[in-house]
């Protein structure tokens, strides 16, 4: 297994270990995000630092040369394909988020207009506001899309190397 494949595995495992618990909590309790965000970032950093230290000690080529092996054309080709997948995943996530946000905004607005009509009063701009809770949920889903795109990127790299190794 090459250094770059191991590195992609570490990033993939790190993201899963750090962000699956993070999103499990914050999508249920959106206001708990600030502390957990930093905790997830620290967990991810710790996984990557430990991996790179262990890998640097264990990898012969790094020991002998004192540097990380550069990406060659096969590595670049695998990364390029993974980037395309990640870009596609991110695009789908963002477009889905925009559609859901737009639909939700229309629902909120329509509901406010309907209530004002029933009450026979003028529509106040405050009726169109959304709660901080809803806004945080929306932000968490957008961030989840970004994290999923990263999983697609590193998963794509791992898949590319495994495909070459097992073909």
């Amino acid at each position, binding site marked *: *297994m*090459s*250094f*770059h*494949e191991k590195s992609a595995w570490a990033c993939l495992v790190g993201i899963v270990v750090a962000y699956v618990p993070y999103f499990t909590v914050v999508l249920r309790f959106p206001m708990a995000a600030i502390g957990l965000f930093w905790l997830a970032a620290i967990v991810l950093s710790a996984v990557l630092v430990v991996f790179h230290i262990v890998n640097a000690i264990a990898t012969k*080529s790094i020991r002998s040369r004192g540097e990380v*092996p*550069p990406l*060659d*054309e*096969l*590595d670049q*080709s695998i990364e390029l394909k993974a980037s395309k997948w990640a870009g596609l995943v991110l695009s789908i996530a963002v477009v889905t988020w925009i559609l859901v946000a737009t639909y939700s905004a229309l629902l909120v607005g329509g509901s406010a207009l309907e209530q004002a009509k029933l009450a026979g009063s003028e529509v106040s701009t405050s009726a169109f506001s959304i709660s901080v809770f809803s806004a945080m949920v929306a932000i968490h889903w957008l961030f989840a899309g970004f994290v999923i795109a990263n999983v697609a990127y590193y998963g794509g790299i791992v898949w590319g*190397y495994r*495909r*070459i190794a097992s*073909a």
Partner: protein
Amino acid sequence: MEASYGAIGESPVPKVQISNRIRELRFTAGELTQQALADRVGITRQTVIALEQGKYYPSLELAFVIAEAFGVGIEDVFQPQINSRPSKRSGRAS
């Protein structure tokens, strides 16, 4: 060579399978290891393995550099087998 390319998405480039003699040339060049060849041409050992097993086709630049490393012509290292049937994929193995 004549071929019809009707379907959308089909490449007009005929399918090419490329075999190589890298493994054989390594042994004739003083039992050169995969890592030594990789260092000489600036790629990783995993790429040398993939090339030898025919799982990856190199770029033209890399093919020339590998041939140069063995001191032979490119056609002495890589042997293309061109089929007239067009390929749906680009020049990558598998």
